[in-house]
């Protein structure tokens, strides 16, 4: 175990989606799927072992961001964070996702790391994860028997665990066309750090009245979570200082963070509500 040397593994380099699916059907849990590798290789240097690594570099046609005003946005498995940062469509239509991509990692890692990889990694601190949970959408999974879509609300099943079956290949993430006003915010010690706390919101506004909201938070539970009680409080109301105070209190009561290297449970609980409140204000600004 060393940050210099990777353990031994067999490399799989599929050239197409069907080939990738076939390899996963064969090797299942023995294969780790690598998109950008900026997370996986760090984990492997820290001791994670996998018999096989399946690199997606040579599966052509997976690095797409396709937007349609009716169907929404499709983010291919190899679409890099840098592509999201450079996309005017994402910046305009999905500010939460754009803002999360802009601060996720460093310019160098953003040239390799992918949005779908961030989702599949299932870290409760994933910045793009908070954004996609607030925006809503589905992970498209392909197995030998066909495709299925899993709602992001049900995708993360535990710490670093997802609803993806070992034989399924994550082809893309789909975000609906109609999403509310959105924003992302996070707290870190310095800019390139992993978040100690992050939040993303999307608000379906009719004038000043919030018809519905998706409030997502990271680093406060084993997975990213929606703040359902706060969502209920804000629904159907004009967003006033008083309502935001109630949201802040509801979030604080709802979160169950832990102590770790990046922050303490106490501090996270103290500021979680404030962060959600400020993210709402950012979305409406």
């Amino acid at each position: 175990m060393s940050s210099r040397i990777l353990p031994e593994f067999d490399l799989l380099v599929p050239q197409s989606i069907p080939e990738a699916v076939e390899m996963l059907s064969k090797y299942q849990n023995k294969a780790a799927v690598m998109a950008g590798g900026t997370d996986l290789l760090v984990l492997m240097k820290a001791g994670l072992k996998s018999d096989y690594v399946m690199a997606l570099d040579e599966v052509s046609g997976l690095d797409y961001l396709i937007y349609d005003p009716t169907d929404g946005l499709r983010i291919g498995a190899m679409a890099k964070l840098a592509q999201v940062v450079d996309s005017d469509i994402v910046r305009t239509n999905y500010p939460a996702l754009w803002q999360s991509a802009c601060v996720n990692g460093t310019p160098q890692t953003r040239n390799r790391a992918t949005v779908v990889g961030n989702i599949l990694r299932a870290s409760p601190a994933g910045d793009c994860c908070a954004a996609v949970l607030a925006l809503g959408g589905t992970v498209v999974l392909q197995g030998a028997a066909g495709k299925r879509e899993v709602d992001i609300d049900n995708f993360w099943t535990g710490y670093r665990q997802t609803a993806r079956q070992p034989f399924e290949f994550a082809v893309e993430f789909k975000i609906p066309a109609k999403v509310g006003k959105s924003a992302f915010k996070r707290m870190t010690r310095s800019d390139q750090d992993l978040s100690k706390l992050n939040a993303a919101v999307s608000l379906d506004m009719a004038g000043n009245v919030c018809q519905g909201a998706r409030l997502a938070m990271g680093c406060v539970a084993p997975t990213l979570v929606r703040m359902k009680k706060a969502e209920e409080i804000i629904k159907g109301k004009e967003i006033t200082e008083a309502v935001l105070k109630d949201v802040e209190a509801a979030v604080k009561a709802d979160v169950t963070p832990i102590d770790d290297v990046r922050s303490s449970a106490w501090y996270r609980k103290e500021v979680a509500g404030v962060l959600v409140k400020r993210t709402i204000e950012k979305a409406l600004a």
Partner: protein
Amino acid sequence: MKTRSITLYVNGEAYSLNVAVNRTLLQVLREDLGMPETKYGCGTGECGACTVVVDGGKSILACLTLAATMDGAKITTAAGLETDGKLNPIQEAFISEHAVQCGYCTPGMVMKSVSILAKNPKPTEEEIRRELEGNICRCTGYVKIVQAIQKASEVMASTR
């Protein structure tokens, strides 16, 4: 496969290699090709010392890239910036602005600067600082590095 035959184009030269699949691009550059200008810093994507430029302008980390997945890639390292024995304006500016102290981060800083100016020939100080987020220097405090990039930007604009 445990090894893979690949071709890497490093600083304009083609290299046909048979690499172990668990070797990083950084290991292959330094140890197999004997090109020590790209540095090993943290190995985990925090410091930027191993920054190289691929396909004309994108900065990536050689320590978090498997060489076996880079078949056909065009890689530029700090040693590939000079032309006919003359340093690149970015390298010249790092010297004239005293942007080097211990020098360990410098090849990574220079390669990151190449990618910054390739995409944005006239960056503001704020843009430079944001783009340098992934490159750590423990000596200079960054002021002179930022000044060097600004200087290089001016020189390159005037000679274009």
